[in-house]
Structure formats: C-alpha cells, structure tokens
C-alpha cells in the first residue's frame, strides 16, 4: 500500500456514507472498472481503511465489518480453481456479481441524491412569503371546517415522550394484536350506539372469515370485562343479544 493512499484515507475518514460508499471511492481512486473489481486489491485497501479507523479509536459501524467478511468471502471464492470443463452454473455465477449490482444501485441513488440537492431548494435558493396576512384576512381563511396536518410520526413521538416520562414502561407496551382488537371494539361500539342492540350474528355482518369471528368474539369478551356492554340470552342455547351497558 502506498503512502499517498493512506494519507488520503486519513483525510477522508469521516466522509464515507457506509461500506458501499467507501468501496465506490476505492474503485474510483484506483481507476478500476466496476464490472471487474480486482477483489484482492480492493479488499486489502478496504481492510487498511478499517485499520485506520480502529487505530484512531473512531466508532466503526458494524456494517463495515460485515462488508469486510463479504469481500474476503468473494476473494476466497475467486481463488478457487476453475473446473477444467466449467458447467453452466459456474459460467453464469461470478462471485462478484451481487456486489457489483449493489454498488451500481447505490451509485445510481447517490447520483440521484446529488441531483436532488442541485434543485432550487426552499429556504436555501428560493423563499416564499413569510409575512403573516393581515388579521381580517386570516380569520376568514381559517374558519373553515379545519384541515388537520399531523403525521403519525408526531403522534408516536408524543406517545414516546409520555412513556419515557413514566417509570412503569410495561404499562404502555403495545402489540399489534391489541390494536387489531381495538379496531373491532370501535366498530362494535359504533354499531351498538346506532342500533341499540345486536346479536352476535348481526355484529359479524357480511364478513364472516375466521379471523373476523375470533376477533369479534374476543372484542365482546373484552367489552364485557370492561363493563361496556352486557350480553343477554333469552333461553339456553338461545340467541345472544348485546346491549350497551349504559344507555346514553
């Protein structure tokens, strides 16, 4: 390895966006054809780079190590002797092909990102009106049936904030099952409010797949436990009717 190369690494230490970015850099640096990467050379330079990072005690993301092992794996496969009469499979599988595909794809997106950054960006290259409209205008603009612009992300963050303020985090464990159940619970309650009382059959409606039946049943059990609904039966094995627990 030559000195110039290592100087260069040392300067560029922090600028790589990941192992693929580093590999692209090495390929460009060595003026290598991306379709025919000399794996031994690139692997060595790659490992040299990791060495520098480690000796500088910088954090090294795990992905770099995974790539190191991938490179070495490819290298070892390329060192295997080629069979005298190569079969069809051997011909079509260059051990490097998957890596090349990945590199090309990454390169394409890197270029796309650069192109995006060249556009006239709001607040960097172009600016919109930031002055508020006079009060009398503003009023009429907002007294409409209000549009809301909130993202789930904000909702999650709000919930996350609450959780991190609490000691007992188990209380707030969420699982998908529970949420699916809640969908049905909301549905059941909505229909009970409208119809006053319903049979289990009626609750199921048209959708009678297995999952739906099970969830509806579970939802009812939950609602009864929560004392939100009551279930009545006129006779043994008779039809079960569901009522809201409290009229409102």
């Amino acid at each position, binding site marked *: 390895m030559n000195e110039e190369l290592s100087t260069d690494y040392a300067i560029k230490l922090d600028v790589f966006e990941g192992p693929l970015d580093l590999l692209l850099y090495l390929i460009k640096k060595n003026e290598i054809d991306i379709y025919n990467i000399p794996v031994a050379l690139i692997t060595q330079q790659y490992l040299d780079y*990791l*060495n520098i990072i*480690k*000796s500088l005690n910088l*954090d090294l*993301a795990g992905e770099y*190590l*995974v790539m190191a*092992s*991938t490179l*070495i*794996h490819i*290298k*070892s496969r390329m*060192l295997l002797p080629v069979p005298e009469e190569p079969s069809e499979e051997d011909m079509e599988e260059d051990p490097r092909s998957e890596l090349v595909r990945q590199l090309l794809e990454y390169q394409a997106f890197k270029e796309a990102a650069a192109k995006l950054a060249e556009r006239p960006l709001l607040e960097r290259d172009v*600016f*919109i*009106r*930031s*002055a508020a409209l006079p009060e*009398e*205008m503003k009023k*009429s*603009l*907002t007294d409409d*049936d*209000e*549009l*809301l*612009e*909130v*993202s*789930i992300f904000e*909702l*999650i*963050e*709000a*919930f996350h*904030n*609450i959780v991190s303020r*609490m000691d007992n985090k188990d209380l*707030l464990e*969420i699982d*998908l099952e529970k*949420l*699916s159940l*809640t969908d049905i*619970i*909301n549905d059941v*309650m909505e229909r*009970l*409010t409208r119809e006053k009382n319903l049979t289990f059959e009626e609750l199921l409606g048209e959708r009678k797949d297995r999952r739906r039946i099970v969830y509806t049943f579970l939802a009812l059990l939950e*609602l009864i436990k*929560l004392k*939100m*609904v009551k279930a009545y039966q006129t006779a043994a094995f008779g039809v079960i009717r569901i009522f*809201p*627990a*409290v009229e*409102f």
Partner: protein
Amino acid sequence: MDNISAVIEALIFASESPLPLEKICAVLDGVDKTEVKDALDKLIAGYEERQSGISVQEVAGGFQFRTRPHLAVWVKRLKGTKPGSLTPAALETLAIVAYRQPIVKAEIESVRGVDVSAPLKGLLEKKLIRILGRKDVPGKPIIYGTTKKFLEVFNLKELADLPTMRELTEITEQQGMLDLEAAEENTGGQETILQESIGEESSEVISEVIAEDDIDS
C-alpha cells in the same frame, strides 16, 4: 450586479415583517441610498401601473406586499388553505387514546399526570376522538376511542397500522447508544463471523489483519 429593483422585490417579499428602507440599504451595501430609493419607487410604480392583484405598501415604517383591498372578497373565499395543527397536550392525549382505547378520562389523566378536560374537548370537537359508551361502574365514566376521521388524518387503513412501541423506539431512540452497543457486539463477534463465512485460506489472512490491528490500537 443584479437588477436592483428585482433584488428589492425579492427582499420585500421574503421579509417576515414590513421592510424598512434602511434595512434594504444595509443588504444592498455599497449601493447609494438615492439609487435604492429610485429602484424601490420604480418597483412600486410598476405594480400600480399593471393594476396587479398585489402591491407594495408602506406600513409600520417599512414596505410589504399586500393584496389589494378591493380583492379582499375573493381572498376571503379562499378557505382553509392552512392546515391547523394540534397542541402538544392534545397530541399526547390523542396518542394515549389511540394506543390505549377504549379508555376513560381518569386513565388518561393517570398517564399524563394532569387534567385532560381541555384537550379531550378539543379532540372531540375536531372529531378525532369520540365517546364509545359508558362503563357500568360507579360514576358511569365515559369511554373514549378514536374516530374514522382519526384514521383519515393519519392516513391509516386501520388501527393495527399504528406503529408499535418497539418500532417507535427503533425510530425515535437516539442513535448514539445503539451504535455503541452494535460496535461492541461486533468487535466481539468478528472472529466468529469471519470463520463461519470464509474458507480456511482467507481466514488466515484475516487473522493476520486483525492481529495487526490489535497491536496497532
């Protein structure tokens, strides 16, 4: 240098408050004040001549674009262009209802630690939550749940589409800590990963590299 009138036009447009002449001069450092004033007058005159829908007005000691008064009737027809947002209190309350429903007010308050009457009312008005029913326990507390509009606003097909705790930790947790853990894990695991995935030949090479590495660091 760019056309001074155009620069002034952009400055007045982008300014948050009426832009005083002095400030324009300060930005156009080096340009004579009378020249700036001339360019500004030309700009104002241009909008007047064209009878455009907006004009540069001198207000509160500065210059600002405003729509023309006689067009106010049209502007007022333009409704709801700015989507509203939720207050942090409303957002937190909504989050609790969304994830913990069906839920009563006392339960929300025990999580948030404060009275939630106001945010609950706001959310009901905005039709993001609704009353599901009452609980058959003393006091008959009202039970809240989210609405269809809630799903629409948050672009969800169903409640089960809400991200879970684990996922939200993944998204919101500070990266720093995770990286450190991952790094440690990986350092320990190196040898194993390499040996598993690589033939004997090359693992020698790696061991060398790693050995060198250990000495260096």
